[in-house]
C-alpha cells in the first residue's frame, strides 16, 4: 500500500481528492475510442467530475436525490457516479439491457430525479416510460448520435451540462466544497438493485463505511497496489463492478480501463493485459470453448504439442501454482511448455499479466478451473452478495480448490444456521433495503447477521466453506431423500455442450431436467460432423444431439450416485428446450440466473409430459424480442429416459 491511510478518508469524494493529490499525473481512466486508448489522469478525472457536479448543482440537485445511471462501462458514467456522490446525491446504476418495465420499476421505486443515459437506446427506453416517473427532471445523455431532433425540454447533453457547470464555478464552487466536506462515514454511498432472482428487485443501500472498509480489507488481502490494471466490462449495476472499479480503484488508486464496445472486449483485454481480473465462469468457459474450437482446426503438429503440453500442465500446473514442490524433470518440462504453449496461449487470452483473478457468481466446473490454473493463472474463487458489498468468503493464495469458496474474508464472521443456511456479519453489511423495512428485517437481524439464503457447510479439516444450493430450493423427494437441484444443474453445465439446465423433482418420485444446448459448441460439433440444421430449434431436437445430451446426463448420474446424500437427485427423464432461456422473457435474471418458478409455470405442459410418460409433447411458447415486441414459437419436443446408476454403488461397498 503506497497510498497514505488517513482518518479523513471517509467518503468517495475524499478518496478522489486524495488520489489527485498523490497520484496526480498517473492514468486513472482509459477508454478505447476511435481505435486508440484515450486516457485521463487523476487530476483530469477530478476536473471532469467537478464540472459535472457543478452542472448538477446548477440544475438544483439536492442532497439525497437519486441519480440513475444507465449505459455500458465508460469513464464518463463512472464520473457521473462520482459527481453525484460529490454533491451528496446517491448514484443508482441500472442494468443497461433491462427492458422498459424493469427500468420503470427501479426508477419509480428510487424516485430518480436525474438520469445519466449512455446513448439514444437508453434515452428511448426512459422516454417511453416518463409519464410514470413523477420526480424525473432531466435526462443527461452522453452520446448525442440520433438525438439531435429530440425535444430537448427534458434532455441535456453531458458535455453541455459540464460546460454550464464550469461557467457556474464562481457561484457554486463554495456549495460544492461544502457538500463534499459534509459527508460522513455512515452516509449513503451508492444504491444497487439486486437482480431479483425471486420477485421484484430490492434497492440495497450501501454506506461509505461499507464500501471503503470492504475495499480496504480486500485490497490488503490481495496486496493490490496503484499499479494494477483492470478491465471494467461487467454491468455497472452489479455490486462487483462497483467494488472493483470504484471502491478498490479509488482506495488503491489503480487504473480502470473501459472497452470500446461489448463485442471488442476480448481484443481490448489482450491490449490492456489486466493484472487483476474478474469474470463469471461463463466468460472463462467461452474463452476456453473458443480455444478448443480453434485447436480442432489446427495442424497436427500444433495439436500434438498442445495436447502434450496441456496434459503435463494438468498434472503439475496447479501444484506448482499452490507452491507445492514438484520433481526437477517436471519443472523443466513445465518451463518448456511455458515457452511454447502456455505463454503464447495466455497472451492470446489476454491473461499474461494476471496476478490475481477471481471468479464468482456461480459454481465453476473443476476442469475449467484447473485448465486456467494449470496455465499458471492465479484464478481463485470468492463467494459474495450485494448485501455484503461483495465479500463473504474468499480463497487465499495457496488454498485454492474448485469445490469450495474459501475462508471468511477479512473482517467477516460466518456461521451456519440450524437449517444449514449461511449467515454472515461484517463491516460491509448493507444499511437497509430502500423503502422496504420488512425485507430488511427479515434479512438482517438486530445483531447485524445477514441470512444469505444459501445452504452450505464448513469442511472440518480445512475450514473452507462449501455451498450446496439456495436454501429455499433444497427440498425433499417424495420418499424423503434430499433434493438439491443446483448441485445437479452445475454438474450438467460443466459440459461445454450444455449451456443451462433446470432440474425438477421436489416432492416427486424422480427427477427430470430441461436442458439448453450451447449453440456455439453444438453448432461447431454439427459442422464438423456434417449435420445440417436450420436454426437453434432444429439443432436442439436433432436425434444425435439428444443422444449426446443423454450421454452427458447418464455420466452425471454416475457421478451423483457416488454421493449417498444426494443420490436421489439423478435425472430419470429429460428434454432439450426449443429456445434458450432468456432474460427478456423473464426466465432468467439480468445476471443470467434461472428464475425457477417462472420456468416451472411457463413450461408446465412440458413438466406434465415428463412426469406423465409421454414420448413427445407439442408446445407453443411466447417470446419477447429485444425491442419488446412479442411473438411465439411452436415445437414438437422429444422426451427421453436416461439410465439411472443408482443404488448399486452403495450395495457394492
Amino acid at each position: 500500500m503506497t497510498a497514505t491511510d488517513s482518518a479523513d478518508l471517509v467518503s468517495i469524494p475524499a478518496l478522489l481528492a486524495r488520489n489527485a493529490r498523490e497520484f496526480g499525473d498517473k492514468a486513472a481512466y482509459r477508454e478505447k475510442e476511435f481505435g486508440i486508448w484515450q486516457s485521463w489522469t487523476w487530476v483530469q478525472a477530478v476536473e471532469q467530475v467537478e464540472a459535472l457536479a457543478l452542472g448538477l448543482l446548477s440544475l438544483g440537485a439536492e442532497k439525497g436525490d437519486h441519480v440513475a445511471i444507465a449505459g455500458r462501462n465508460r469513464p464518463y458514467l463512472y464520473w457521473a457516479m462520482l459527481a453525484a456522490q460529490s454533491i451528496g446525491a446517491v448514484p443508482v446504476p441500472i442494468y443497461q439491457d433491462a427492458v422498459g418495465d424493469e427500468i420503470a420499476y427501479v426508477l419509480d421505486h428510487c424516485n430518480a430525479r436525474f438520469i445519466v443515459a449512455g446513448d439514444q437506446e437508453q434515452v428511448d427506453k426512459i422516454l417511453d416510460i416518463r409519464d410514470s416517473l413523477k420526480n424525473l427532471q432531466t435526462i443527461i445523455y452522453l452520446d448525442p448520435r440520433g438525438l439531435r431532433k429530440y425535444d430537448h425540454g427534458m434532455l441535456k447533453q453531458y458535455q453541455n451540462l459540464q460546460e454550464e457547470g464550469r461557467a457556474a464555478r464562481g457561484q457554486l464552487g463554495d456549495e460544492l466544497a461544502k457538500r463534499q466536506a459534509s459527508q460522513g462515514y455512515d452516509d449513503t454511498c451508492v444504491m444497487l438493485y439486486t437482480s431479483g432472482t425471486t420477485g421484484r428487485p430490492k434497492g440495497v443501500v450501501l454506506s461509505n463505511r461499507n464500501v471503503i472498509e470492504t475495499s480496504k480489507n480486500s485490497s490488503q488481502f490481495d496486496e493490490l497496489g496503484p499499479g494494477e490494471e483492470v478491465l471494467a466490462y461487467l454491468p455497472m449495476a452489479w455490486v462487483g463492478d462497483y467494488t472493483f472499479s470504484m471502491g478498490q480503484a479509488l482506495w488503491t488508486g489503480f487504473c480502470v480501463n473501459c472497452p470500446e464496445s461489448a463485442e471488442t472486449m476480448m481484443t481490448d483485454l489482450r491490449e490492456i493485459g489486466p493484472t487483476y481480473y474478474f469474470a463469471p465462469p461463463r466468460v472463462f468457459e467461452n474463452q476456453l470453448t473458443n480455444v478448443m474450437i480453434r485447436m480442432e482446426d489446427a495442424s497436427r503438429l500444433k495439436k500434438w504439442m498442445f495436447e502434450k503440453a496441456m496434459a503435463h500442465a494438468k498434472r503439475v500446473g496447479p501444484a506448482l501454482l499452490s507452491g507445492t514442490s514438484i520433481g526437477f524433470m517436471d519443472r523443466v518440462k513445465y518451463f518448456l511448455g511455458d515457452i511454447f504453449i502456455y505463454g503464447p496461449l495466455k497472451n492470446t487470452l489476454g491473461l499474461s499479466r494476471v496476478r490475481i483473478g477471481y471468479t464468482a457468481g456461480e459454481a465453476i466446473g473443476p476442469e475449467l478451473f484447473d485448465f486456467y490454473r494449470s496455465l499458471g493463472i492465479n484464478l481463485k474463487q470468492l463467494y459474495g452478495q450485494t448485501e455484503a458489498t461483495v465479500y463473504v468468503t474468499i480463497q487465499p493464495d495457496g488454498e485454492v480448490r474448485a469445490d469450495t469458496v474459501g475462508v471468511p474474508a477479512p473482517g467477516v464472521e460466518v456461521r451456519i444456521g440450524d437449517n444449514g443456511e449461511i449467515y454472515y456479519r461484517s463491516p460491509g453489511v448493507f444499511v437497509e433495503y430502500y423503502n422496504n423495512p420488512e425485507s430488511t428485517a427479515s434479512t438482517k437481524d438486530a445483531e447485524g447477521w445477514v441470512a444469505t439464503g444459501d445452504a452450505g457447510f464448513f469442511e472440518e479439516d480445512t475450514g473452507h466453506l462449501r455451498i450446496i444450493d439456495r436454501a429455499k430450493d433444497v427440498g425433499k423427494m417424495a420418499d424423503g431423500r434430499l433434493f438439491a437441484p443446483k448441485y445437479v444443474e452445475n454438474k450438467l453445465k460443466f459440459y461445454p455442450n450444455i449451456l443451462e439446465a433446470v432440474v425438477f423433482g421436489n416432492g416427486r418420485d424422480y427427477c427430470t431436467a430441461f436442458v439448453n444446448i450451447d449453440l456455439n459448441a453444438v453448432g461447431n460439433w454439427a459442422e464438423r460432423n456434417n449435420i445440417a440444421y436450420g436454426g437453434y430449434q432444429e439443432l436442439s431436437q436433432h436425434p444425435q444431439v439428444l443422444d449426446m445430451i443423454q450421454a452427458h446426463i447418464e455420466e452425471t448420474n454416475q457421478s451423483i450416485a457416488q454421493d449417498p446424500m444426494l443420490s436421489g437427485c439423478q435425472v430419470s427423464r429429460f428434454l432439450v428446450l426449443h429456445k434458450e432461456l432468456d432474460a427478456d422473457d423473464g426466465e432468467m435474471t439480468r445476471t443470467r440466473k434461472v428464475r425457477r418458478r417462472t420456468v416451472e409455470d411457463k413450461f408446465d405442459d412440458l413438466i406434465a409430459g415428463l412426469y406423465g410418460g409421454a414420448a413427445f409433447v407439442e408446445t407453443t411458447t411466447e417470446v419477447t424480442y429485444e425491442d419488446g415486441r412479442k411473438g411465439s414459437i411452436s415445437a414438437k419436443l422429444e422426451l427421453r429416459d436416461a439410465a439411472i446408476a443408482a443404488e448399486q454403488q452403495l450395495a457394492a461397498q
Partner: protein
Amino acid sequence: MFDQAESFVTPDGRTIGAVMMEMKNITLRFGGVVAIKDISFDVREGEIRAIIGPNGAGKSSMLNVISGFYHPQEGEVWYKGARRPEMKPFEVARQGIARTFQNIALFEGMSVLDNVMTGRLNHMKTGILSQAIWYGKAEREETENRAVVERVIDFLEIQHIRKTPVSRLPYGLKKRVELARALAADPKLLLLDEPMAGMNVEEKEDMSRFILDVNDEFGTTIVLIEHDMGVVMDLSDRVVVMDYGKKIGDGPPDEVRNNQAVIDAYLGVAHD
C-alpha cells in the same frame, strides 16, 4: 411543395436545400437497346432520393450515369449549378460523389480498416515513394486520414471487425463495410445501389437506421436504389419510379404509392 420553395424543413425536422443535381432528358443506349429513355429528375441537397422499379427498369444504369461510369448519348447532367462535362469515374468521385455496389466490390483479402482507408485515397496527396518511406508529411497525412476513418468505423459500429479480413465477414457486415468506405470519402452525394438486397429483417432495420443517421448526422444527400418497397417508403423524401427505361412516376412516397402506372408496373399488366 418541392418545386416552389428554395429550401424547406420536413415534418421530422430536417432541412432540404436547393437542387444539387439535375438530370435533364437523359437517354442511354447500348447498341440497339435503350436502357434509359428521356428521363429528367433532380436531387435536392440533404434529401434521401429513391429510385425504384422492376428488374431491368434501368435503375442501376441511371446510377452509373450519375457516377460517371456510363455516358448518356443524349441529355445533360447538371451538378452544383453547372453542366458536368463527360468525366471519368475518378473525376466524379473527386467532386464529392461516392457509391456502393449492388454486388459487393470490396478487396476481399484486405482488412476492414484497409478497405475503409481506400475510401480516403482522393484525400491523400503524397506520392507512392514518400508513403513507402512513411516519414514527415506522409505520416501526418495517414494519421489524419486514419482519424476520419475511425470516426466512420465508430459511427457504423464495426469496431469489432476492424482488423478482420473482409472475406471472413458475413454478407450483412460486408454491406456495412462498403457503406463505411463510401462514407470515408466524405461525400456530398452518396449513391447506394440496393443497400439492403439479400438481408434479413433485422439487418435491414440496422441498415435503415444507419442510412437515416448518415443523412441526419453529416447532412449527406443520398440517392438509393431499393427493391423493398416498405424500406423505400419509410426512408425516402422523394421517389423516382422507372419501368422499361422510362420514368413513370416522381414524387413523395405517398403520392407514388397511389400512382396507377406504378401499381401496374409492380403488379404487372400486359405490355404491348
